[in-house]
C-alpha cells in the first residue's frame, strides 16, 4: 500500500484528480458562502442550480454543438440570469432570516428537483465528453478533461477575486456583508447588491455543475452531492468566509481524491463527515471564520 502511495504516476493522478475536484468544490462553496455572507441565507437549493447548469451545458454543447468554452460559460450565465426570476420570487423573502431561509429554500430545492424530473425524466444522462485526450508529461498521466476543469475554474475564481477586491461593486458587497444598516446609510442599494451577489454566486455554482457533468453523469437528483460538499467546505472554512471557501474546498478535494483512491469512497465519506463534526464541536467557526 505504501508503495502504491509513493508511486509518482499514481500520485500524479491523485493530485490532478484532487485539483479538479477541489476546483468544482471551491466554485460551489464560494457561491454558497457568498449567499450566506451577504444575504444571510442558507441556500438549501444550491445544488439544484448546479444541476441546472449541467443541463444547460448539455443543451448548449450536446445539442447545439457550440464550442465547449463558449457553451460552458454561456450555460452558467443563462442559469444565473434566469435565476434572477427566482431571486425576486423566492429568495428575497428570506434575506437576513437565516432559519426561515433554511426551510423555505429547502422547499425551493424540492420544487426545482421535481420540476426537472417532470421536464427531463429521472434517467441519468451524460454530456458528451469534450476532452478525451490524455497528456503524458514525464511519465505522469494527466487526463485533459480534469486539467480543463481546473483551468476554467481558476480563471473564473481569479476574476471573482478581482471583482471582490478591486472593484467598487465588490467593495459594496463586502460592506453589505459586514453591516447592512451602515452600508445602506452610506448609499448602497442593498437590493441591487443582493441581485449582483446572487448572479455571481449562481454563475459559479452553475459553472461547477457543468464541469461536474463533464466528469460525472447528470440527473435531476444530482444536486444533493454539491450541496453536501458545499456544506462541508463552508463549515471547514468558516461560513461567510471567502478565503475559507477556497481553502476548505482545496482540503476537501485533495483529501477526498487521496482517500478515495487508496481506501475507497466509503472511507472518504466517513472521514470527511467525521472531521467536520469534530470541527463543529471544537471550532464551529471554521478555519477562517470568526467566533461569535
Amino acid at each position, binding site marked *: 500500500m505504501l508503495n502504491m502511495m509513493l508511486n509518482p504516476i499514481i500520485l500524479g493522478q491523485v493530485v490532478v484528480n484532487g485539483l479538479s475536484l477541489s476546483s468544482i468544490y471551491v466554485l460551489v462553496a464560494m457561491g454558497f458562502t457568498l449567499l450566506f455572507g451577504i444575504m444571510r441565507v442558507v441556500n438549501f437549493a444550491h445544488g439544484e442550480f448546479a444541476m441546472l447548469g449541467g443541463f444547460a451545458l448539455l443543451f448548449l454543447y450536446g445539442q447545439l454543438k457550440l464550442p465547449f468554452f463558449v457553451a460552458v460559460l454561456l450555460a452558467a450565465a443563462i442559469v444565473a440570469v434566469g435565476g434572477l426570476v427566482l431571486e425576486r420570487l423566492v429568495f428575497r423573502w428570506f434575506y437576513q432570516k437565516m*432559519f426561515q431561509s433554511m426551510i423555505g429554500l*429547502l422547499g425551493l430545492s424540492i420544487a426545482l*428537483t421535481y420540476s426537472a424530473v*417532470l421536464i427531463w425524466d429521472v434517467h441519468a444522462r451524460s454530456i458528451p465528453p469534450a476532452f478525451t485526450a490524455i497528456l503524458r508529461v514525464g511519465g505522469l498521466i494527466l487526463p485533459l478533461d480534469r486539467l480543463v476543469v481546473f483551468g476554467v475554474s481558476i480563471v473564473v475564481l481569479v476574476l471573482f477575486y478581482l471583482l471582490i477586491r478591486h472593484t467598487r461593486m465588490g467593495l459594496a458587497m463586502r460592506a453589505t456583508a459586514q453591516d447592512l444598516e451602515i452600508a445602506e446609510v452610506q448609499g448602497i442599494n442593498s437590493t441591487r447588491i443582493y441581485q449582483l451577489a446572487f448572479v455571481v454566486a449562481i454563475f459559479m455554482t452553475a459553472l461547477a455543475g457543468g464541469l461536474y457533468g463533464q466528469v460525472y453523469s447528470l440527473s435531476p437528483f444530482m444536486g444533493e452531492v454539491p450541496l453536501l460538499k458545499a456544506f462541508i467546505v463552508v463549515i471547514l472554512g468558516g461560513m461567510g468566509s471567502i478565503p475559507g471557501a477556497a481553502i476548505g474546498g482545496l482540503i476537501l478535494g485533495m483529501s477526498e481524491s487521496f482517500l478515495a483512491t487508496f481506501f475507497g469512497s466509503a472511507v472518504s465519506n*466517513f472521514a470527511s463527515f467525521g472531521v467536520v463534526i469534530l470541527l463543529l*464541536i471544537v471550532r464551529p467557526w471554521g478555519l477562517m471564520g470568526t467566533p461569535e
Partner: protein
Amino acid sequence: MIDDTAAGAAVRSGAAALSAPRWALAGLTALVMGVWPLVYPHSFALHIGTLVLLYCIGAASLHLVARMGHISLAHAAFMGIGGYTSVLLVMRLGWPFALSLPAAAGAAALLGLAIGPVLLRLSGKYFVLVTFLFGEIVRMVFSEWRDLTGGSNGIFNIPRPYPLFESPVAYYYLALGAMALCVGLCLRLVRSEIGRTMDALREGEQLTECSGVPVLRIKVTVFVIACAMVGIQGALQSHFVHFISPESFNIFESLNFVVMNVIGGLTNLLGPLLGALFLVLLPELLRDYVNLQRVIYGIILVVVMAFLPGGLVELGRRLRAGGARLLGRGEG
C-alpha cells in the same frame, strides 16, 4: 432561532389551560379517531390513518427538542436506530415484540444520551449543521454495515408483532395507543414546570442558566425522551410496512419531521400533529402525480415560510381573528 413573537405577540403567562370549547373539540376528535375504524374499516384509509398516527409520534417528539430552541436534522436517524433494533432482535434473535419495542426505545435513547451532551452545547445554526451530518453518518452506518443491517437493500418480510396485528384495524389501534401515550407524555411535559423551563431556555438561555436552571441537564433529558419516542415510531413503522432500509431514515425524512413542525407551527404542540396529518395526507391525495405533488410540496414550503412562519396554527389564529373582526363589524 425562530422568534416566537412572529407567531403573534400573544402574552402567555404560563401553561395556558384549554378553554371549554377546546376541550369539547379535543374530546370529539379523540372520539372520532378512536371509533371510525370500527365503522368504516377501509384498508387504504386504515393504512394512511396508521401512518398519520405514527408520524404524530415523531413530529411531537421533535417538537420537544425544537421547543428548547434546537432544530435537529437527525431525528430520522434515531427513528432508524429504533427500527433496526426491533427488527433485528425479532428476526435474528427471535425476541418477542413486547421486549423488542422497549429495546428499540432504549437503543435510541442510549444514542441520544451519548451524543446529546456534546451536541446540545452548540448554538442554533451549528446544532442544525452537526445534526445534519450526524444523521448522514448514521445512515451511512446502516448502509455499510451489511452483515448486520442487510445494507442498502434493506430487510424484507418483517413480520407483524403477533398474529393479532396482521389485521389493519388491530395495528391501527396499536398505533393509536402508542401515539396517545407519547403525545400524552409530550403534552404533560410541555404543560409542566419542565415545559415552562424549556420555554425559558429557548427565550433566554443565559438568563435561565443564571436563574439556577441546570440547562444542559434538562436539554439532554428532554432530548433523550424525544429520541426514545421516535425510536418507538421506527419500530412500529418497520413492522407495519414489513420493510426497512437505510433510505427510510435519510436527511429528507429528518427534514420531513422539521417541516411537520414548521408547517404546523413551532410554538404549540398541536402544530406538529397538524403537520403530520398534512404531510402524510398530501402525497396520498396527489398519488398519481408523484412528481407534481412534490413540486407543490416544495412551493407550499416556500410560501408558508415566506408569509406564515408561524405555520398552520398561526393561520388558524389569523383566520379566527379575521373572523372575529368580520363578525364584530357585522354586528356594529
